[in-house]
């Protein structure tokens, strides 16, 4: 699949690398040059396309190949940027598969009901933290839910 990822922070970079390992053709968009230099999060052996550009800008999206993309994922820190870019990807470019990161659970719900596939890390992470808190004490901290005396 041809996949465009908007945002090359920790999450976007990790995702881009994982998708490339799976054999997808990945283009990563970020507004800042620094996202792609040695300080950035992309590993050195990432071979996909790195592009400086704004994922909400029609011209930049076109340059990133939005007209022929199979999937678009917006993964910046800004919820509003993410949902605006996701809607442009869907309604202007007609990209078939769209996933968007929405930190605010309420906004995630609204945009989910508007037909976007939203992922809200806030609720997921809060649940993981709660689980970890409630898990029984052990000598070694569990990396995943360890079975107690059962």
């Amino acid at each position, binding site marked *: 699949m041809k996949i465009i990822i908007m945002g090359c922070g920790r999450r976007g970079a990790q995702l881009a690398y994982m998708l490339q390992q799976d054999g997808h053709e990945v283009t990563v968009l970020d507004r800042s040059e620094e996202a792609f230099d040695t300080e950035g999060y992309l590993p050195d052996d990432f071979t996909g396309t790195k592009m400086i550009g704004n994922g909400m800008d029609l011209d930049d999206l076109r340059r990133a190949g939005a007209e022929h993309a199979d999937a678009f994922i917006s993964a910046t820190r800004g919820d*509003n*940027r993410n*949902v*605006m870019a996701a809607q442009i990807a869907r*309604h*202007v470019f007609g990209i078939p598969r769209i996933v968007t990161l929405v930190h*605010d659970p*309420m906004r995630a719900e*609204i*945009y989910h009901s508007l037909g976007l596939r939203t992922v809200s890390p806030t609720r997921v992470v809060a649940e993981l933290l709660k689980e970890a808190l409630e898990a029984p004490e052990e000598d070694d901290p569990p990396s995943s839910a360890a079975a107690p005396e059962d």
Partner: protein
Amino acid sequence: MYIIVVGGGKVGYYLAKELVESEHEALIIELDPARCAEITEDLGDIVMRGDGCEASTLERAGAGRADIVMAVTGDDEDNLVVCQVAKHKFDVPRTIARINNPKNEAVFTTLGIDTTVSATGAIMAQIEQELPTHPLISLLTLKGGGLEMVEVKIPASAAIVGKPIKEMLLPHQSLISLIVDSAGQPRVPTADTVLHEGDEVVAVTMKESEEALRAALTEPPPERSL
């Protein structure tokens, strides 16, 4: 009417001021506490501190009974989300978004925002009227039939300068309706009216004949090889 204005910058401030003066009920939602204090000092208690993109903030602001929500911050993505949350979560009948990047105008319309206002777009339209590279200005679209009223200024280099209108090859369904000369005198043209440099020609034309009309009025005579 109850109108919620999201964004307390210059635009939001003057908008709310005007609305209150026209006896509407207005509320500004602004994130920055210092700005909130400034507005309160000037306009009284019509400010709420908060993030207008959050459903909970809009709820506190009484978005459920608002007639209009206007999003006028300096960020298009924030304005889009404010309007969409207002519309889909609170059923606000009318949403208005300020657009900073004029390219977003069409996008916002596609995404269901009722009205968009673009200062950049409005200023560009003004400039384009003055630019010599845009000799044909669209004045208005006439109802039905795809007819348009346009204005063209005759440049010195035009082949038609010094010649009567009847010598010009006008495109189909184009009609020269009015000529304003460089002194500002309006004339109703006849076939014998001679065109001069600097004349403003007002014409009615079909949208698809626009380019041909522009060419007839502005293009220099074809170069002749000796």
